[in-house]
């Protein structure tokens, strides 16, 4: 008899630790799971400490698992065969889904304590049946085995049989830590920073500075594509696109060339904070990594940081480029990030940007500009777009 994997078991991780807030975390996690599975037919079920995806089209199973592995807060996932708790049926399924040769063990978990046999007895019984009904090429070894069959007897009267435990994305359910505004440039680092912070439960908003005609529509599309890649992890992302050319012109005209980037970044931070507050974001996120470029030295960060009061999360501050690229590859943003379009940070690039800017100097040069008017205009002309999960 053919037995299909008919149920996907979801275990959730860290949110167990959260005591009284558990209901809140769980409701968020469930919401995120449902958002991730948008467009697919299935039934969602839950018991104490477990979620189940059932009644799906068997052809969708891999797709469902792939999407679930991107939902933060999930510890692991297993495709299972769900059967009524009936020993004969359990044994038949176990034999049917078992590989036909190799060394195995059966691990039984009996949450349903009403069942008249112990876990050990059940394991022996099921294992015995498997040995007898699979052609005689299986062996049992409880310590040194090739595969392990898990048999989970739940109080609901159903039993779940499975082999695989697929690791989930871990972390906390997106949104449980509040909202934060990610400065998304189009480079390699910023999407990774967004991913890393989303993992700690932040709902991500993104802001991008566009310098038409110095940057192209393709550069903007690149940023949207990057945001799209983050949505399986973060859910829908609201993206603010800020016209930045006028500010760059003003800085270019009135400030020393070597301070171009420093002052530009101070404007970016100010605008990000303004937009962040509008969308109730409690923090800014940047992809800065200490010392990577001139604008990411400790002195530069001090000068750019000093214009905002919201906390600025820099999750990659201690990472090497190679480590960042590894995550970028994992979340599939790297290939987009290296598309060769200029972003607003590379136009008007001075030959020798100041590496250790002094705050007093930055303020002195900046005072030549009508900062408030420039920022008001940029914020007013900012276009919001929602990047949705596929």
């Amino acid at each position, binding site marked *: 008899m053919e037995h299909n994997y008919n149920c996907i078991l979801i275990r959730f991780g860290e949110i167990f630790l959260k005591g009284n807030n558990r209901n809140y975390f769980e409701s968020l996690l469930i919401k995120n799971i449902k958002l991730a599975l948008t467009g697919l037919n299935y039934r969602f079920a839950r018991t104490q400490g477990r979620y189940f995806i059932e009644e799906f089209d068997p052809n969708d199973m891999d797709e469902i698992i792939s999407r679930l592995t991107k939902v933060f807060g999930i510890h692991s996932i297993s495709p299972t065969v769900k059967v009524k708790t009936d020993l004969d049926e359990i044994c038949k399924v176990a034999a049917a889904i078992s590989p036909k040769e190799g060394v195995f063990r059966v691990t039984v978990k009996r949450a349903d304590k009403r069942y008249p046999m112990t876990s050990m007895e059940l394991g022996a019984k099921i294992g015995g049946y498997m040995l007898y009904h699979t052609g005689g090429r299986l062996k049992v070894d409880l310590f040194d085995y090739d595969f392990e069959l898990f048999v989970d007897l739940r109080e609901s009267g159903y039993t779940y049989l499975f082999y695989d435990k697929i690791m989930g994305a871990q972390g906390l359910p997106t949104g449980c830590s509040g909202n934060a505004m990610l400065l998304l440039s189009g480079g390699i680092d910023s999407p990774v920073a967004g991913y890393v912070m989303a993992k700690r439960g932040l709902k991500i908003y993104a802001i991008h500075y566009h310098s038409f*005609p*110095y*940057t*192209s*529509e393709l550069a903007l599309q690149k940023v949207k594509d990057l945001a799209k890649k983050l949505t399986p992890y973060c859910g829908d992302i609201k993206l603010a696109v800020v016209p930045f050319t006028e500010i760059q012109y003003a800085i*270019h005209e009135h400030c020393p060339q070597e301070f171009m980037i420093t002052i530009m970044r101070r404007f970016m931070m100010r605008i990000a904070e303004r937009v962040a507050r509008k969308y109730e974001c409690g923090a800014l996120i940047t992809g800065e990594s200490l010392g990577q470029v001139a604008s990411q030295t400790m002195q530069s960060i001090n000068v750019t940081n000093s214009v905002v009061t919201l906390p600025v999360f820099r999750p990659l501050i201690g990472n090497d480029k190679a480590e960042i690229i590894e995550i970028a590859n994992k979340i599939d943003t790297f290939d987009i990030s290296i598309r*060769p*379009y*200029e972003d607003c940070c590379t136009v*008007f690039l001075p030959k020798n940007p100041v590496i250790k800017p002094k705050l007093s100097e930055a303020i002195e040069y900046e005072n030549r500009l009508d900062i408030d008017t420039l920022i008001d205009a940029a914020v007013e002309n900012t276009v919001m777009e929602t990047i949705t999960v596929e």
Partner: protein
Amino acid sequence: MIFFDNASTTKCTESSVEIVKEYLTEKFYNPSALYHESIEVKKGLESVRNVILKRLRGDGKIIFTAGGTESDNIALLGCKKQKGGRIIVSANEHAAVYATAQELKQRGYDVVFAPVDNYGKVIISEFEKLVTPQVTLASIIHVNNETGAINDIQSLSKIVKKVAPKALFHSDGVQAFGKVEVNLRQMGVDMYSMSAHKIGAPKGCGALFIAKGVSVNPIVFGGGQEGGLRSSTENVGAIMAFGKAVEERYTCLAETQAKISQIRAYIKQNLSSIEGIQFLSADDSSPYILSFSTPKVRGEVMQHALERRGILVGTGSACASNKATSRIAEALSLKGKYIDGVTRLSFFIYNTLDEAEVFVKEYLAVYKELSKYGA
């Protein structure tokens, strides 16, 4: 909308659209089938081959391909070559030839690049130095896609055939066919690539001329269409439209050239006042292309700024980090800020002098604005 990027592609003519529609709906039959309807379609393809051959003034055959790039690939990769022999291509060939030549280099051929002058034209005396008896293939673009330079294919081919009589001569005619007169007998060309969408017919269609007696092996295998040289069911509608476009373009070639030359001359004259402007298209180049570089505004920035004003132009340099385009700048010996400053205007039958006037006005205004900030 003013479209001055016709070297990249052209809008399909109304006749093309009608023909494609007819062949997608009424005459949709597979030309390889044996019933009457298909035979009629096949006859149609043959008539287009004849139209093209007549306009090429060549003795040989035409095979239909998926476009200029595929034609170039079949020519360079498929033609019979002496193992390890020398292959000459010009330094500013279109990527379809340049990248294929690089591939042949990987396969052990001695690939050399013929230098070009500041207008993108192969320097005959320099080319001559590269020609040895070991030459097995030369591929020189007829009309250069970046600058419009018209290469003296006849002289180049003569030089090759004199020193290496067995060598084959290929020319990429994608920017030439349908736009300038072609005479393959005179030019001494063995293989010639063409594209449909540069002359008002659909994308996804091209042709390769193969001279009589020239042996070419397929690079795509399958059902054996196009004499086994390009398996795949023919893109019938596009081919039929291509045939019509060829006829239309050549029927009024002189008038079109005169009109477009006027547009080009007007623009060139009016942009000459820009400080430091360097024209990359010589006066004797194809009238359909006018390339120039300015030191103060990058080509791409200008492109985007003009785009906002409803004018679409081409650019020589997509981005400073784009190596593919710095090759062309290098070949043309562009220096410093001129490398990124290239704008390419390219014209087609639809363009008018009125558009040229609007363009000049807008261009000068944008240039004045943007040049304040430097490249």
